[in-house]
């Protein structure tokens, strides 16, 4: 088995990317984008989390079974949010 070891330059680049994304999130919060403020903030957070998962947590080098478990966790979270919000957001449709 060959173990792919992520090197220091990669880690440093990801760190800088995460810092830049944090700065962008903070800056974007002060710009009035209306409904898109939430989307931008969440989108950037998802991007940061993806970088951490793939590179810091080395999921990009992991087995397919491992990747499946990661995706499944996210999937169940999506189900939790999706089904619950579909209830709350459709209340008041029928008077």
């Amino acid at each position, binding site marked *: 088995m060959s173990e792919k070891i992520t090197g220091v330059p990669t880690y440093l680049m990801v760190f800088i990317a995460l810092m830049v994304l944090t700065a962008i999130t903070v800056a974007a919060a002060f710009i009035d984008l209306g409904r898109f403020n939430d989307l931008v903030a969440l989108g950037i957070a998802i991007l940061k989390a993806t970088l951490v998962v793939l590179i810091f947590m080395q999921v990009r080098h992991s087995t397919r079974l491992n990747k499946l478990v990661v995706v499944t966790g996210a999937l*169940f979270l999506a189900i939790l*949010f999706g089904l619950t919000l579909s209830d709350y957001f459709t209340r008041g449709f029928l008077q």
Partner: protein
Amino acid sequence: MSASRVSGQGTVSSGDPMTGKWGLAHQFDSFEQQKESSYLGMWLFLAQEIMFFGGLFLAYLVYRTRYQDAFAAGSASLDIGLGAFNTAVLIGSSLTMALAVWAAQTNRRKATVWFIFGTILLGGVFLGVKAIEYTDKWQHHHVPGPHFEWHGDGDPSKVEMYFNLYFAMTGLHALHMVVGIALLLLVARWAWKGAFSADNHNFIEGMGLYWHFVDIVWIFLFPLLYLLGRA
């Protein structure tokens, strides 16, 4: 299955961190499988943690859409500078954690210890800032309960809900950090004793997975709690 080092076996990565003895536990067919099951176990735990925090995030989302103005007002009372600083500190601690794992993988014993201590230090800074924030909240009577007072915009009972969620989510997160720091102290001790190496680093990789997860939770907490309605 003998636990002897066979050429062509490749890198071994599992062992007993307390004694530093590496080897293949009898229930596994190969070092590969042993390593993978260690990762899988930690990730299954993290998947559960995702749901654990997910419940609180969902509650926050629902109440936020219902009490938009009150939540924006509550959020505005948080110090965005401290929050951004803490975000940078925690991401930095993830960097030091990743570097600690790298150092273990490349047989750098002292560097491993230094990076673990760096992670512990940054984690401590994060918790210190949180303590400052919590104290400030306490002094302004923003802690939900019998002494809660709200004199700003928004319906006080709705703003109190914001602070309920703020303390529940950041409190749970801080608890995870305390546990993480306690484990890191243990890992630092083992690393000092030379337990981790290119042949034996599953435990420290698992520790890294836990720590990165705690960082990810904060990556979502920060914009949701601190950056609402600032425009």
